[in-house]
């Protein structure tokens, strides 16, 4: 039987995919070229070699501060996501299915209300918080939780629906497991992929966050980068390029590992096997 195909012909497919890939590589190539420029003209690795000084050189202090602040914020936001968001999402799914629609709607709001609009409301809240908790950067994690909520919710929810969490937890309960045991021994192992991608998204969003921190005048990775770009654009571009590559490698390995997990769990029959069946 001849299979009628809807995908484009091979040459057209190649033209589209290669064309878009090449266009998307141009900025990465330009960034690399820029970091190799020597101030005296010509090319050298001196900016890359200067990378080792970020920790101790005075001129990079704002960047190092921002980086460590953002790392702390990532950790705190992760605690919020894994300690409050994830259990609540699971709990609603298991015990209050009627509320799932409300939760669905609630978690779209941070997308529908732009961060720049939320900042207008965050400003007076953080003025108050500053009086009791100080004006340190770490309090920003409370605002960041809202920003990551839509993405973490979707990541966890997709896994929750995929694993038949209700049936599994009822089975575990009827066998005498406590809720604690259901969480730690059934749900969390089953949700590890969703929790992992929620965590990675959280880190990516917090490390890349600029809107809230810059308008509340806090020093984070991104505001530090912007500040240092005025005195040393080379190092700013270099660090941006590096963090982009790191994120790409992380996500590529996670999605690679994910597809392996999926394949080992539910083996979809290959085309060859299908044709045997038919």
């Amino acid at each position, binding site marked *: 039987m001849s299979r009628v195909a809807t995908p484009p012909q091979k040459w057209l497919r190649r033209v589209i*995919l290669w064309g878009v890939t090449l266009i998307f590589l141009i*900025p990465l190539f330009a*960034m690399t070229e820029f970091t190799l420029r020597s101030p005296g003209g010509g090319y050298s690795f001196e900016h890359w070699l200067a990378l080792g000084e970020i920790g101790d050189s005075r001129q990079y202090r704002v960047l190092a501060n921002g980086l460590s602040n953002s790392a702390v914020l990532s950790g705190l936001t992760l605690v919020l996501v894994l300690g409050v968001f994830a259990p609540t999402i699971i709990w609603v799914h298991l015990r209050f299915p009627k509320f799932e629609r409300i939760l669905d709607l609630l978690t779209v709001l941070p997308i529908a209300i732009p961060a720049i609009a939320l900042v207008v409301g965050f400003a007076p809240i953080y003025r108050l918080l500053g009086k009791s908790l100080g004006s340190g950067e770490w309090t920003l994690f409370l605002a960041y939780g809202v920003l990551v909520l839509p993405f973490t919710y979707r990541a966890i929810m997709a896994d929750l629906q995929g694993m038949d969490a209700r049936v599994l937890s009822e089975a575990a309960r009827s066998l005498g497991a406590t809720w604690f045991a259901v969480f730690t021994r059934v749900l969390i192992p089953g949700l590890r992929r969703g929790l992992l991608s929620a965590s990675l998204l959280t880190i990516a969003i917090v490390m890349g966050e600029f809107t809230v921190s810059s308008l509340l005048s806090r020093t984070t990775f991104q505001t530090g980068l912007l500040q240092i770009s005025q005195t040393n654009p080379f190092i700013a571009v270099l660090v941006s390029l590096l963090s982009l590559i790191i994120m790409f490698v992380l996500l590529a390995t996670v999605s690679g590992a994910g597809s392996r997990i999926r394949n080992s769990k539910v083996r979809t029959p290959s085309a060859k096997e299908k044709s045997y069946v038919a």
Partner: protein
Amino acid sequence: MPNRKIHGSKEQWFSLKRKFAWLGLAPFSVYILAFLGLPTVLAVGSGFRDGQGKFTLANFSVYSNPAVWDTFGASAGLSALTAVVGAVAGALVCWALTGVNQDSAVRRMVDAASSVLAQFGGVMLAFAFIATMGAQSILRLWMQETLNFDIYANGVWLYQLPGLIGPYLYFQIPLMVITFFPAIERLRPQWVEASATLGANKCQYWRHIGFPVLAPSFLGALLLLFANSFSSYATAAALISQGAQIVPLQIRAALIGETGASNANSAGVLALGMIVVMAVAMVLYSALMKRAARWQQ
């Protein structure tokens, strides 16, 4: 009777457990009220207050300023342009991807790249484009030398409104790939076969089956892209350090008091305007998604 007593205590025990279950929702609810509900109310509410905190509608007078309408127009125009171009380009990539094996390295790379790049906004994206198209960039110098063509013959527009188009497309196209691919993947091969059996050629298949089925998903994704670029702030703020060419930058100016006439209350009114536009886009989006769901099982 002892039996009844046990029964009663059991009921009490269950109602206690029920309350306990409710208690599980408390931390999240408190957090959401304090950091999503309260800021929204404060942001919108500040638009209805004057400097002394009294109720007023006077702040809405910013909308009588034609410059404000111009920035809303510029924001909408930029968002529409990058949404349409991003949606068409992204849909083409999705279409090409349907011909690639699901487990192949190409698919994995595209998946990972789109999820990274769809989140890649802000300062680092601005840097990428300054390195690519800045006045000293290799691209400009090369075009000047070999093609004898200066992209900045009429002044450097990278730090103006047109300069945002390239960077915005850099996250719009990947976002389109992420949102639209599941829809195009759901097109069933049986439909092609059925239409071919009935004598339709490929063009007729796309015109009468493929496009109509995909239309709601495509329009929905288009709206999502529009909303995405309409609400973007960081990239524009990093690229355009002064001025208020689009609404988010106007809110910045109002918040930090860049221009004398602005204040925090007009920031609230502008934020409300943005929320209204976003709400319309999101309501339309969910309606389209419902329509798109018709062709799923």
